[in-house]
């Protein structure tokens, strides 16, 4: 008798912001194989960019992702600036750094909230999304928008930070740090979370290197890489921060990396506001010479890579975009196989795949169609936490 069951998940999936299709092959509770089909949201942005001017390209890449709407434009600007060595004024470098770090904080909080929800910690979900609001407010103060900032351009930034806004930003940041401290304690000191998340979805250091995993996913597996420190761009060579690494490679380690990174990010924003001097924010470059350039930056999920080839006209001949999730994604083959279905949800969420939630997910048994919906998968995951709590004598 064949005990294998195929669980198709998607193309609409509760963990992902974008549609994709997972196929989990399970034997009883255990996942024995996994495959993924992406492309449901392929918009051909690389092709579109070839028909746009460089100024428009920045706007196009900003719309790749609703969360990394500062990372892609900066990477694209860095690539274009790399072609012919365009100088960026110092103040603009600091402003780029500030938007990057604020973006990292709100992205990590978003992830923490979702992760909390999937394991049945809805308080964590409510808290972290609530505390994310002041960060979006600061973003709005600086750029005029909570998301899709329209802030970056080749040679600088579009808007300066007003002097009277600095104290507001610092006050909100201080308030936020207190809340984050509380959140950190609530998450990292919770014995149930330790029991629930430690040791599952382990990505070994060797696998992380072989798959060229990036960002928090790699750092949680002991691979000490961070574009901000290794390939300094914007003003990262001027600020001091720690690169957070863990060695375990499990879901808990990934959570620890992200939570501790938020403190570093807040510190970087403070240092930038402190060090910034008055000055121009745009070097107003005119022409882009023929050539090719590479821009790498550290997005919240890892290195974001842009390659641009230019023939001297106003639009790129080739614009290659590689988002971090592209490299982190295939590590699933390492982490999900061998785990149980109730853990699959949180392991999938652990790399912070750049996708969000819709709720169509089902379990299909080979012959007669048994359906398992998204809520069902999340319920499984939440029940496991509940049982664990009961076993540990907590309510």
């Amino acid at each position: 008798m064949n005990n294998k069951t195929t669980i198709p998940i998607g193309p609409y999936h509760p963990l992902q912001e974008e549609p994709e299709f997972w196929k989990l092959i399970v034997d009883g509770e255990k996942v024995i194989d996994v495959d993924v089909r992406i492309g449901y949201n392929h918009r051909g942005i690389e092709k579109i960019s070839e028909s746009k001017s460089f100024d428009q390209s920045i706007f196009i890449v900003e719309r790749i992702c609703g969360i990394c709407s500062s990372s892609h434009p900066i990477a694209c600007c860095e690539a274009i600036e790399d072609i012919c060595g365009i100088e960026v004024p110092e103040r603009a470098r600091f402003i780029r750094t500030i938007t990057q770090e604020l973006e990292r904080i709100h992205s990590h909080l978003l992830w923490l909230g979702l992760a909390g929800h999937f394991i049945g910690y809805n308080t964590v979900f409510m808290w972290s999304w609530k505390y994310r609001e002041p960060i979006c407010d600061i973003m709005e103060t600086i750029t005029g928008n909570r998301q899709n900032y329209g802030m970056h351009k080749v040679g600088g930034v579009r808007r300066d930070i007003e002097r009277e806004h600095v104290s507001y930003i610092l006050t909100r940041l201080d308030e936020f740090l207190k809340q984050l401290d509380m959140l950190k304690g609530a998450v990292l000191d919770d014995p149930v979370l330790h029991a629930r998340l430690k040791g599952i979805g382990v990505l070994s250091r060797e696998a992380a290197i072989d798959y060229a995993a990036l960002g928090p996913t790699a750092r949680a597996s002991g691979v000490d890489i961070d574009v901000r420190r290794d390939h300094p761009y914007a003003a990262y060579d001027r600020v001091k921060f720690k690169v957070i690494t863990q060695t375990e490679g499990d879901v808990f380690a990934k959570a620890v990396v992200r939570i501790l990174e938020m403190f570093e990010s807040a510190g970087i924003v403070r240092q930038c506001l402190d060090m910034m001097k008055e000055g121009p924010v745009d070097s107003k470059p005119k022409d882009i010479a023929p050539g090719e350039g590479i821009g790498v930056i550290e997005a919240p999920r890892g290195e974001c890579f842009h390659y641009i080839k230019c023939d001297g006209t106003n639009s790129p001949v080739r614009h290659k975009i590689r988002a971090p999730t592209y490299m982190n994604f295939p590590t699933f083959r390492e982490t999900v196989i061998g785990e149980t279905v109730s853990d699959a949800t949180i392991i999938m969420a652990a790399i912070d795949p750049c996708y969000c939630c819709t709720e169509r997910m089902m379990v299909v048994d080979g012959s007669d169609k048994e359906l398992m919906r998204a809520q069902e998968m999340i319920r499984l995951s939440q029940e496991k936490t509940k049982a664990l709590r009961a076993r540990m004598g907590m309510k």
Partner: protein
Amino acid sequence: MTADIISQKINERFGDRILKSDRRSAKRLYVDVYPKEIVDITRFLFKELGLRFNIASCVDDFDGIEILYHFAYDPSAVIVTVRVIIKDKENPRIDTITTVTRSAWWIEREMHELFGVGFDGNEDMRPLLLPDDWPKGVYPMRKSFVVPRRDSRKS
């Protein structure tokens, strides 16, 4: 290792198998090789020098299909780009580098469907981004591909 030292090491190992080596700045090194060398140079960079595979960019250019393999050396902020030009545009083929690193698994699938590049030794050439019913032999990232006009008279 600075860009100069990496360039020197590549030259020592590969000698005249390197067509051109261009150190554009302290952070960027471009190395041109024949397509048949790609597995050897990838193994050298990835396994021996410990560079990280960033990604590969494929370009449909005048001389043929150009593939740029980007590798990063994180301790000293260098990005090494290995460029190969496949002259045969009709049926471009090159050896897979997934035998060296699994990180190239997806990008080879992507280049296969968007540019029509065949990767010898890579069995998994299922579509990654394009829909399953995408016509065979149509490669949307080729310069010859023009987005077809929609006939609005048909529903």
